[in-house]
């Protein structure tokens, strides 16, 4: 309880997240082997910060995101936002999943309206906001299409519109562009960065792609594999306004190299550990 109170105290800013001594393990039920997925994670994500969790597959970065989202219960430690310790999913922390997780039986517009309805917007406001956010992600004209009629990139944009429309303070993204082809992915990264610059949200973005992390983030947490620990937290020392041109900027390239070396260490360690 004392820890909870402390964590609450730390997370004062409107949409900051404070993660204190969080560990998580899987298995163990029915005599199965216990696998430690996260080992004593400590991290503070500031208000309006774009934070990337970067690490090799199996480092528990998605688990950490689901814990922040409240989808799986916290076993040890405390995760707190301005609203207090996280105890379940809530509209203050919206999430975009890797596989979009749209409702396939609803049209694009109805998908966006669903969240707005749950958030308690009145009918007129719902319509207006839904259209605004569909326009924002360039899906104008596809309001009445079903997800199965859209390409992967369009589905992911619909999922992002649905999540942004409810105006969550905290936006959680679980490798949202992982399933997209390289070109779409690049465009989506630029759009996301631009949307974030305009809307000023706290973003926690999970990825294993170094360039994606460096392009998007203010700060990057580099995680080790099994058990997942945060090995480095690094400020991205690049201009806030990042367009396509930054990809060729020597600072971007140098910085990416540096991050890559750090991630590589973890990936190599993980491979050795597995043998």
């Amino acid at each position, binding site marked *: 309880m004392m820890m909870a109170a402390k964590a609450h105290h730390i997370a004062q800013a409107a949409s900051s997240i404070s993660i204190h001594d969080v560990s998580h393990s899987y298995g163990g039920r029915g005599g199965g082997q216990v696998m430690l997925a996260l080992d004593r994670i400590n991290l503070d994500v500031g208000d309006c910060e774009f934070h990337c969790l970067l690490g090799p597959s199996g480092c528990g970065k998605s688990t950490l995101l689901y814990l922040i989202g409240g989808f799986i219960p916290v076993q040890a430690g405390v995760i707190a936002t301005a609203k207090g310790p996280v105890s379940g999913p809530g509209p203050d922390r*919206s999430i975009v999943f890797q596989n*979009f997780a749209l409702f396939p039986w609803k049209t694009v517009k109805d998908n966006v309206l669903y969240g707005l309805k749950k*958030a308690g917007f009145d009918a007129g406001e719902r319509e207006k906001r839904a259209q605004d956010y569909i326009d924002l992600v360039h899906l104008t004209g596809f309001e009445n299409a*079903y*997800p199965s009629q859209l390409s*992967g*990139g369009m*589905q992911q944009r619909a999922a992002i519109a649905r999540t942004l429309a409810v105006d969550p303070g905290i936006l959680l993204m679980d490798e949202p562009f992982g*399933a997209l082809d390289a070109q779409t992915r690049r465009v989506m990264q630029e759009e996301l960065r631009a949307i974030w610059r305009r809307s000023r949200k706290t973003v926690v973005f999970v990825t294993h792609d170094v360039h994606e992390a460096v392009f998007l983030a203010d700060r990057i947490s580099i995680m080790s594999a099994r058990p997942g620990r945060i090995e480095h937290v690094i400020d991205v020392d690049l201009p806030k306004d990042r367009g396509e041109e930054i990809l060729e900027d020597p600072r971007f390239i140098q910085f990416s190299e540096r991050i890559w070396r750090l991630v590589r260490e973890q990936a190599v360690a993980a491979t050795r550990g597995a043998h």
Partner: protein
Amino acid sequence: MSDMAQARPLADAVKPGAPRQPWTISAKLVDTAVQVAVILALAAAWEFGARYGAINPFLLPPLSVVLERLWSDLISGVVPVDLGLTLYRALTGFLIGAALGITIGILMARSALVRWFFDPLISIGFPMPKIAFLPIFILWFDIYDTSKIIMVAFSCFYPIVSATYAGTSGLDKWPIWSARSFGARERDLLWEVYLPMAMPQILTGLQVALPVGMITTIVTEMLMGGRGIGGTMITAGRFADSVGVFAGILEIIILGFVVVKGLEMIRRRLLVWHPESQR
């Protein structure tokens, strides 16, 4: 759900009313034409085979004679009453079976207690010929509508409960997590997520159960007598009225076709969002 990750050609989405490629239409037209032609050829073989003595007209009366009988029975009100009764029993039983099957199927998926209770009952009951219960149902519920409807509901229940249980257990967790992150409560999830997600499988269960229900209706009518298509056919058979029997067969064919097609239409309507409807 894996369909979702695949990009579909955008043309489908952008212009739903756009003209399709011409060969798809003509292929479908040819299909339908062939099917109709086969039925017409069989009808013609029946008619002329019986008329020109290839087949004994008592064993197989010509189609035209059967149609005449059907027409006169239609005018006299026999057919409408029989059809109405049979349809009423079949659909009432089907709907009761569906209501119970869908409810229990969902509860089984949600609660271990319900699953423990019903799982063995369904494992035993599913492969069993349900009609075996008819004598006891007659004793319990006498020989009128009640026992027939209960028999139909009983036989429809099994395919529906199994399909619903399969459909609502092991649901893809992502849409559920999405709904919860937007603030959906557990009791909203049933109507807002579980049911729509399981709808394709529930409908498949219903589509399996409906012909089962029709068969059960006709069989119970035949075994218990009285009005209804099955009862009228048995009476005709007892009086060696082969024309009457064949009139009954035609009624059943038409009724079955209409009812099954009706459910198919409902499926297409409910699953417009599903990739299966966009082919």
